[in-house]
Each structure stands twice: as C-alpha cells, then as structure tokens.
C-alpha cells in the first residue's frame, strides 16, 4: 500500500548531497549552521551552481565540501586555499569558496591564508572557528582562548591565541566579517557580500564543538554554547581588528570589519601582460 505520508523535501535539496545524509557532525555542532547559511546565501544569489566550486581542507569542518552539491574537493590538511587558488586561476570564470576549520586555515594553512589574502585571490573563505582541533580529538589550536582546557592543555592553555580577522586584514583581505553560529540571517547576508566581492573575502563563524570543547570545559552542550556565544556577542561594524581578540567565555565582537577594494591577482596579472606582453592571438590552425 502506498504510504499516505507526504515525503517532505529538504529545502536545500538542490544544494546538498542528500545521498550523503546523515552527515558525520555531532548533534549541537555549529558547522551545520555555517553550511546552511552558505547554502541559503547561494540560493538567494541565484547562482548557476555549475559554476560554483567548494574546496575544503581536513577536519570536521573540512568535510563541508562533501555535503555541498557543487563541484567540490576535499583536499589536504591546511592546503584548501592553495588548491582553490589553482582552481580559480585555472578558470577565472568560476566562483570558488573554501570552507574549513580554524586549525586547518590558521595553523598548518596559515601561510596560504596570508598569501592568498596578500595576492587578493578572488575566493571566499568561510572559517568555522570552534577554538579546537576537533577531528583529531580536541587538541589545543592556535585559536584556543587562554586558559581554556583541551585534551593537550589539561591545565589550561597558556599560549596567546591568534586573532584571525586581524591577520587576514593585515595581509590584505578586502572583506572581513565575524558572526556566531546562531547569527544565521546576518551570517548569510555577510556570505552574500563576501561572494559578491571581487578579491579575497573572509568570514569567520564562531561555533561550538559540542564533543570536545564544551565537554572538557564543562560548558554544557553545543546548544548552550551556541546560545552563550550569541548572547555574549556585540555587533560593532567597522571595529578595528586589533580589538577582536577572543578571551575565555568573554564578550565576542562580531560584525563586518573590513570592506575595501584592491585589484585582484588576476586583474594585476592581466594588466601586467597587457603592459609587457608582445601578446595577441597567434596563427589559428
């Protein structure tokens, strides 16, 4: 007998690989929110999805590329941006997005982050910052606040954490914003702006790791943490990025901090070629 139950379709079905659901993320994890906001942004922009490419590095967040139904690459730890640079320069017509974790992008991939921003490669980077290395079991990350507990800082982290927006601004990013995982609407609008911006755009998403960070620090479940970040964040658009350090369970400044114009790598290469090249079409055969 045919079921009388109407099968509900997922609203993002066009953009997600439904054949891979259920995904691997834990209940209460913030990564899904970032992916949803990205999917909604892309839907609102009405992009030709065939021309969109998502690249990830490695980590829990790094699995994002595998759930988004565009041409997508799950590459090596930290090197998503470098890989995406190749895709973008290989075919400048494509929209290229990197979605990855804070450890992936700022630790092992820190060099590529800085230099892609400096070169102003026309890609959008969405960094899910959960203050921890999740996939490998909750080790301390360059973003771990002082003195949070992690599996490798059992007496509390003593290292100074990195303020990623400040780093990418200094390197030359043209768009820098930060939201928490519960700022769904604003995050989506920000991703839209970032995608529309020619050049290196960067959106940081503060998210809980329900499995490691919240547990070891006894901060409740993922949802509690998400709510805590939401309630303890203040929107300060245009705030100088030097003020964006994140303390342990302290107020987090969010908003859009940088929105500026600079020639992209491809534009600079093109004008360099026009200026110096003997150029032009050769004999066609």
């Amino acid at each position: 007998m045919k079921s009388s139950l109407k099968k509900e379709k997922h609203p993002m079905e066009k953009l997600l690989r439904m054949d891979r659901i259920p995904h691997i993320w834990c209940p209460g994890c913030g990564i899904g929110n970032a992916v949803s906001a990205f999917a909604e942004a892309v839907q609102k922009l009405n992009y030709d999805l065939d021309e969109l490419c998502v690249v990830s590095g490695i980590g829990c967040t790094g699995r994002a590329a595998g759930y988004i139904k565009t041409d997508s690459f799950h590459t090596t730890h930290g090197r998503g941006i470098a890989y995406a640079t190749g895709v973008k320069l290989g075919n400048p017509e494509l929209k290229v997005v990197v979605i990855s974790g804070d450890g992936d992008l700022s630790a092992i991939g820190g060099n590529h982050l800085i230099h892609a921003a400096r070169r102003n490669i026309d890609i959008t980077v969405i960094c899910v910052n959960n203050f921890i290395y999740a996939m490998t079991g909750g080790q301390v990350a360059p973003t771990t606040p002082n003195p949070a507990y992690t599996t490798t800082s059992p007496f509390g982290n003593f290292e100074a954490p990195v303020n990623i927006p400040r780093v990418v601004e200094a390197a030359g990013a043209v768009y820098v914003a930060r939201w928490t995982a519960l700022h769904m609407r604003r995050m989506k609008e920000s991703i839209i702006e970032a995608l529309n911006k020619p050049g290196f755009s960067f959106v940081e998403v503060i998210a809980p790791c329900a499995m490691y960070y919240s547990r070891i620090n006894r901060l409740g479940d993922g949802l509690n943490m998400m709510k805590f970040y939401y309630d303890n964040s203040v929107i300060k658009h245009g705030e100088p990025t030097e003020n964006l350090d994140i303390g342990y369970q302290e107020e987090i400044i969010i908003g859009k901090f940088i929105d500026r114009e600079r020639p992209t790598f491809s534009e600079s290469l093109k004008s360099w070629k026009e200026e110096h090249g003997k150029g032009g079409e050769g004999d066609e055969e």
Partner: protein
Amino acid sequence: MKTADKSVLRGKHTLSGFEACAEGALSAGCRFLGYYPIRPAFDIIKRFTVRSLEGDAVFVQMEDEISALAVVLGASWTGKKSMTVTSGPGLSQMMEHIGLGVMLETPCVIVDIQRDGTSLGLPCSPGGGDVMQARWGSHGDYEMIALSPNSPEEMFELTVKAFNLSEKFRTPVMILSDAAVGKEKGEINIPDPEDIEIQDRKYYKGKKDKYLPFKYDEKDLIPPMVDVGQGTRFHVTGLTHDERGYPVMTDTCQEWNVHRLVQKIRLFTDQIIEVEESGTEDADIVVVSYGAASIDALRAVKQARDEGIKAGHLRLVTVWPFPEKRVYELAQNIDAFVVAEINYGQIALEVERCGRGEAENFFVHHSSFDLGKSSDILKSIKKARGKKK
C-alpha cells in the same frame, strides 16, 4: 593541435636543457605553471614566465612548494595542463600533494632538477639522489612514472612525453633531471605543432547527472575526467573513496580504490617503459645508467669495446616504472652489471633485485665532480670483467 598561441615554438633553436623543458611544456599544451623558486630549476621558471607573456599561459609563484603543487592540482582540474618545477628540497615538500594527485587521479608534471644533497647540499651541483624519493616519497601505495632525459633535445621530448603519460594515465608524472642536463646547450629541432603527438585526457561524455568521478573503464582502468564547471557536480576526496568520490572507510573500499590505482600503471608498464641500448646483444658486461651519467657511461662502454671488452649500455629513459623484465633478461645472458649513477647506489639496488643473482653487480658512485669523465666507470667495467661466471 590548435596553435592559437605564439608561445609554441617551431623550427631550429639553440636551447639549454632548462629552456627546452619550458618549451616542451608549452608544446605539450601546458598553460599553467605553479612554482616556488629554487636553484637550479629556476631557469625553467624564468623561460616559462617570459614566454607566457607571448601567449595565454598563466603562472603563479606560490609561498612554498607545498602550495606550488596544490595550485597545480587545482588548475589541472579546470582542464589546464599544469606543471611545477623544483629541486630536491622542494620535492621533499611536495610529497603530500603527490599522494593527493595520485588519489584524485590528477594529470600534472613535476620536474625535479636534482641537485647534490642531503638537505641543502650543494645547490648548484648536479645530483641524482632523489631517485628513490621520487618513487616512494609520498606515504601509502602508489606507482610513479619518472623520465630521465640526458640532453636538451630529450628534455624537450620527454617533457612532452611526461604530459602525454600524465594525461593518459591520469596521474602525476615526474621528470627526473639534473643541473648538468639543464645547463647544457644544444640545437633542438622543434617539429611543427601538428607533427607533435599530443595525448589529452579522456573526458566523460555521458549525462551530466550520471557522472561518477572514479568509475573506470575496464579496458584501461582509467576513469574519464571532467573539468570543474562542466555541470557534473562531482565530489572528490583524498580519503579512500568509492566510484562516486565519496569517502568510504572500509577495507573493501581501500582495496578497490588503491588496487586499481596501482594496477592502472602496473598492467601497462610495457607501454610506458622506454630504454635505450647499445651493444647489449653480445655483451658480457652491461653498464646501466640514466640522466647526465649516461653520457659518460656510454663513453666508457665505447672505450671498453676499443680495448676488446664486450661491454654494452642500458640507459633508463624511464626510471620508473623500472624495466624489471629487461634487466632480468640481460642478467641471464651477461656476467655482470655496472651501475653508474650520481648517488650512492639507488638504482644499483633495483638492478641487483631484478637480476635475481644471475649476474654480478658493481656500483660506481659517479659523483657530480666526475661528470664529463668516464675513467671511474671504465675502471669498474674492468673490475667486473675479472669476475666472469
């Protein structure tokens, strides 16, 4: 082939090996160079960047060799034939992405201009110590194709061949050369583009929504490829994956996945392997060498012949895959192998393994300072002669 690009040379040119490599790449259709500067490979970069001004090739100097190969893999997936060039220390950094290139079955060419090691070694001195690293440097199981030119002319030809093999087998292919061949100048007769055999990757032609990135053809074990942006919405991962490109963490999938990656090369080694022989028909002693050392080895073999020693020469044009069958055949008919290489005995071990005890083995450390001389190799041939079976 389309030649809408002035950057493709024709006719006679006097070029260094380095320049010939850049020209070979352009002739093969390479339109993307990702690199990080290093001596002595830098001269290839210089040539490519200058010549790209005359055409549509793109280049980018990355922040390190890790990203130089990453950018090449990314660009290759957009349909651009892509290359990186480096020397030993850079090759060491590229290893993780060689693995990714193999796993994602991404055609690309890696030119390694070997210099004396270890570590920084002698930056400007030709070396041959990356041979085993080229073969086994990345972790896990895979096969590597590596070609070793011994003249500027061959640098051109083998660069074209490297692109062809990489496109055909959907895998990174290496040029294992050295500073001696790179710096040497020679006259190169570049054929017209339509006379150069160019192999392009096999593209998927089916329905867009039916594309499976690793569904392979039973005949050649090679899955047809697509470019990013063609609307097939593929996913690929460096993790063990099934034919959809999705990660599947099981032994069965690992076996399905990696077994084919290895077999797609192993089953076709006869098509890949190229050696050059002289005097091996009646030889008692065969000198095995490759790259710059092979020029001296050939001279030593001639000198030995002049002295009445039945010596022959086997030059590895393809270092990897190793010509196992041929070495074993020779071993059964000769007294000894003399292996001359610019290292402390990397291919010598392979020759010994493949000879299976049928012939004696002598190794000559033909150091970078011995290049241009053949006395050390001749001395070894004479030593080997004393060890008749």
